[in-house]
């Protein structure tokens, strides 16, 4: 039998042996009493034999561990305060760390779900010294040229995306879709689960749909392949369904329109396309960037283009970076790393706290441990027992942490900003749980080790001291822990104060428009009569009249791209008096009608706004923003001046400036006011452009509750049109700051937690010190020390430790707040005011945490104190 024998079984065997020996000796003529004595003597020490048997058993250590755990649990249950504090502290810290790690892992570390996704790169350009943005997307010219000439890539595609109409017989909605070139499928290495990928013969009349769209709109009906539906602007045929989990370029993209880029579609000088390529095996991004930069220099010779095109190409350098990084964007990456580091710091603080509490516990047990050691407990046993306590605490904390993060992770994810790639896939998954438990074990060892080692030291002096003497001995270890806790908490609190300060400043920025009481929406009519500028303009004027008639509505206007929602695109504009070969200035454009400026509270600085007539009668008037005027005619009045915009690379008619308005922050409140040109709804010719679905803005104190009435109005005017992007400006403003406010809030919560834990640690240590020194304090008071002297002395001890912590924390914060980089607005990462205020607060909290034990110390009754122990 390889099973184990019980202790009792062994004892039975010994007993039987002794009896046989007694019988044998009796048979030789001994008296029974003598025989029994001799048998025992022959055998030796029975308990030792039994003990030896026990330790000779294979699974003894397991049984020991189990017994230690049971003992430890009982010991812990006897001190519920200690148990709750340690388990709670660790659970919160471990839960937060595991949850945050889960988010970071899913969003940033897991490779994209494409084969060999490490070779997928985003290609952008930079042209220092030109008027283009620091990083910009590339044009079709780059795409075609790279596709033909690059030797280092295995595929390249452009993938513009946006929101457009999708309509079946019984349903119409705006959905996210993309217009990738057909080589997207081969480059990413993906295939439809049903149907086929598009080919050039499909032109742009075929679509591949997502698994989600297939499920929600068509109930996974395979016969949908080959059917045609209205997509964006025309009927397109569904030719395939992508597999579940394919999301590109955003998590919400539901449909991919087929298409190729032909040479005749190339407009040199039009930038802005998102280009993605797959590198060949062994190619580095640097090598590819060098090749692509070199190849781009051939572009002007191949495609011609305006004079400034050649100048931009001259300065152009290709930027090649991992696709995943590009999808995340730098701000999000910063936010997530900052939050992960913050929760890790809290975990450190929590560990320090728990280690500290354990040390205090071991210290108060010194006598007990020494006695046990003296009566024969082995060093290993004592160490094991101490470790067992730490282990039980850590295990309980780990289990609680899993429960905690299962509850709080969904809340966290719901509060997170929209558009974080893959955030929907964050779960409390296996790696997260594994990390949680390895953290638990690490913590168990860390927290158990120090007191366990101390417990094992063969120091019997504790018996003589009677447990009262240890004033200040071995204090430095705990003081160090408290000081480092303070330092870590200070770093976090300074970081979050900087974010709060940024948020405050950002909220008080004047964006150039109002955000109160403004409702906005869009609808996309599709009627045979609505084809050109004037007809669409008439429809919009009609709609605006109806909106204005709603109770409480004071002003209504339309604009092509509303601030904080969609960006504007740039065009090149040659101003009157500007040499034509400069290629013109790059200025963003927008289209507007109705009372847009008045509705939004955008100040009219000079001239006039558009009239209703200009929405329906062909004209060539424009309104420009202040900085556009400054850019085109510095220091001069722009009214009545002319500009020639280049639409699609072609010079058009001249437009006349009739008004100047204030700048607005179009994309983000952090940016400077944008130079903008506003065009009327109808261009110089009736067919030049038609604004099908601009954003409406409605000023009304009832902005929050207009949705239903507005939808009813749209049904009257255009029953076929989906209504979408229904927001209030307040919502858009909140959304645009969500990245910052979310990071700020999370970091805020985390730092307050750190601060609280730090204070608890300090309080715990000082309480212990006071308890240890009751006798000493009693003596001092008996000798005439006053309450306030004792109080001041104890409190100053605590404050001293905190001051050391602050002295470490300030330089640490100095070194680390720059990590916040892009998240900060109008605040320096080393803002002295914030640093000073937070350090002062830290000292204040440290003083508070010391004051309570100090008060207890001063209330010591000398007689009682001398009698204690």
């Amino acid at each position: 039998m390889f099973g184990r024998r019980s202790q009792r079984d062994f004892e039975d065997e010994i007993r039987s042996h002794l009896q046989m020996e007694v019988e044998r000796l009796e048979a030789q003529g001994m008296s029974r009493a003598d025989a029994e004595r001799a048998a025992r003597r022959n055998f030796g020490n029975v308990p030792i034999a039994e003990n030896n048997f026990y330790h000779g058993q294979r699974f003894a250590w397991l049984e020991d561990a189990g017994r230690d755990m049971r003992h430890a649990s009982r010991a812990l249950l006897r001190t519920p305060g200690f148990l709750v504090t340690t388990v709670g502290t660790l659970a919160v810290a471990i839960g937060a760390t595991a949850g945050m790690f889960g988010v970071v892992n899913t969003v940033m570390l897991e490779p994209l779900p494409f084969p060999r996704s490490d070779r997928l790169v985003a290609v952008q350009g930079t042209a220092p010294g030109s008027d283009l943005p620091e990083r910009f997307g590339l044009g079709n010219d780059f795409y075609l040229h790279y596709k033909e000439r690059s030797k280092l890539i295995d595929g390249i595609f452009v993938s513009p995306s946006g929101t457009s109409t999708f309509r079946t017989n019984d349903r119409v909605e705006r959905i996210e879709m993309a217009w990738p070139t057909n080589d997207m499928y081969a480059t990413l290495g993906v295939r439809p689960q049903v149907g086929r990928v598009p080919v050039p013969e499909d032109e742009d009349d075929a679509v591949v749909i997502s698994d989600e769209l297939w499920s929600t709109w068509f109930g996974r009906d395979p016969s949908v392949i080959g059917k045609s539906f209205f997509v964006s602007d025309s009927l397109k045929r569904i030719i395939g369904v992508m597999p579940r989990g394919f999301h590109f370029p955003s998590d919400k993209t539901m449909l991919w329109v087929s298409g190729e880029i032909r040479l005749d579609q190339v407009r040199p000088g039009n930038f802005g396309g998102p280009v993605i390529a797959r590198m060949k095996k062994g190619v580095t991004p640097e090598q590819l960037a060098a090749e692509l930069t070199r190849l781009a220099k051939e572009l002007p010779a191949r495609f011609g283009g305006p004079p400034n095109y050649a100048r931009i190409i001259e300065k152009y350098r290709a930027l090649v970076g991992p696709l995943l990084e590009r999808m995340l964007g730098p701000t999000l990456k910063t936010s997530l790393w900052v939050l992960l580091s913050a929760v890790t710091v809290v975990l450190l603080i929590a560990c320090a706290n728990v280690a500290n509490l354990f040390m205090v516990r071991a210290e108060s047990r010194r006598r007990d441990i020494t006695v046990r050691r003296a009566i024969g407990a082995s060093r290993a046993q004592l160490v094991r027992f101490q470790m067992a306590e730490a282990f039980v605490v850590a295990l309980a904390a780990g289990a609680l942490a899993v429960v905690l993060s299962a509850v709080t992770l969904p809340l966290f994810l719901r509060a997170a900003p929209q558009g974080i790639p893959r955030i929907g896939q964050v779960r409390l998954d296996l790696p997260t749980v594994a990390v949680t438990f390895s953290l638990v074990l690490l913590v168990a060892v860390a927290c158990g080790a120090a007191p366990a080692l101390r417990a094992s030291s063969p120091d019997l002096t504790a018996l003589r001291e009677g447990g009262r003497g240890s004033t200040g001995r071995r204090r430095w270890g705990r003081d160090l822990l408290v000081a480092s806790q303070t330092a870590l908490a200070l770093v976090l609190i300074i970081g979050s104060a900087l974010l709060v300060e940024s948020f405050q400043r950002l909220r008080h920025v004047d964006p150039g428009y109002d955000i109160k009481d403004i409702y906005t929406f869009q609808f996309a009519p599709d009627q045979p009569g609505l084809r050109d500028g004037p007809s669409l303009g008439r429809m919009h004027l009609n709609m605006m009249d109806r909106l204005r008639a709603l109770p409480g509505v004071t002003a209504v206007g339309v604009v092509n791209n509303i601030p904080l929602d969609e960006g504007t695109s740039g065009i090149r504009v040659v101003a009157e008096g500007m040499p034509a070969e400069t290629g013109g200035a790059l200025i963003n454009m927008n289209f507007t009608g109705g009372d847009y400026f008045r509705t939004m509270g955008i100040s009219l600085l000079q001239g006039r706004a558009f009239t209703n007539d200009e929405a329906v009668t062909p004209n060539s008037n424009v309104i420009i923003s202040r900085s556009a005027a400054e850019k085109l005619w510095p220091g001069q009045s722009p009214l009545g001046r002319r500009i020639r915009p280049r639409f699609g690379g072609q010079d058009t008619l001249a437009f006349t400036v009739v008004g100047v308005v204030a700048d607005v922050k179009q994309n983000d409140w952090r940016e400077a006011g944008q130079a903008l040109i506003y065009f009327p709804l109808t261009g110089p010719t009736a067919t030049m452009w038609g604004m099908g679905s601009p954003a409406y803005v409605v000023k009304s104190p009832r902005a929050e509750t207009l949705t239903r009435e507005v939808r009813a109005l749209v049904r009257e005017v255009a029953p076929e049109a989906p209504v979408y992007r229904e927001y209030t400006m307040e919502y858009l403003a909140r959304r645009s700051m969500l990245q910052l406010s979310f990071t700020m809030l999370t970091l805020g919560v985390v730092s307050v937690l750190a601060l609280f834990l730090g204070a608890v640690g300090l309080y715990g240590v000082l309480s212990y010190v006071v308890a240890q020194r009751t006798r000493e304090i009693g003596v001092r008071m008996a000798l005439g020390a006053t309450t306030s002297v004792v109080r001041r002395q104890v409190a100053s001890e605590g404050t001293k430790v905190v001051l050391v912590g602050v002295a470490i924390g300030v330089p640490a914060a100095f070194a680390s707040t720059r990590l916040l980089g892009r998240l900060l607005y109008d605040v320096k990462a080393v803002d002295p005011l914030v640093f000073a205020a937070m350090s002062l607060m830290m000292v204040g909290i440290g003083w508070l945490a010391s004051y309570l034990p100090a008060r207890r110390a001063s209330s010591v009754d000398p007689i009682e104190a001398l009698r204690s122990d």
Partner: protein
Amino acid sequence: MPTKNESQALLQGTLDLLVLRILALGAHHGHGIAIAIQTRSGHTLLVDHGSLYPALQRLEQRGWIKGSWGISDNNRRARFYSLTALGRKNLTIETSRWNRLVESIARVMEPGPATESA
């Protein structure tokens, strides 16, 4: 009957071998093994009963012997040990190792000058 002082203390590690040898003759309980060793050695080897049981535990854990409860000759419940196949194999190995050891010791102890080795 020799007293304890005259009897030989067992050489370290030989107890296992003796136990195996006794069990090769048939199953025995602990007490029987001790007595059998004493008897077969002509009462020169006295087994310390306290160290016999750790040896039995050790051998059983190695899977060389197997223990099970049975009834002794004088109608007493006792734990009987018997050799396993593994134990039998090891007895052969250990016996020849023991014989080699005894021979070499005997050669060392032979009277006369030591033979020079090349």
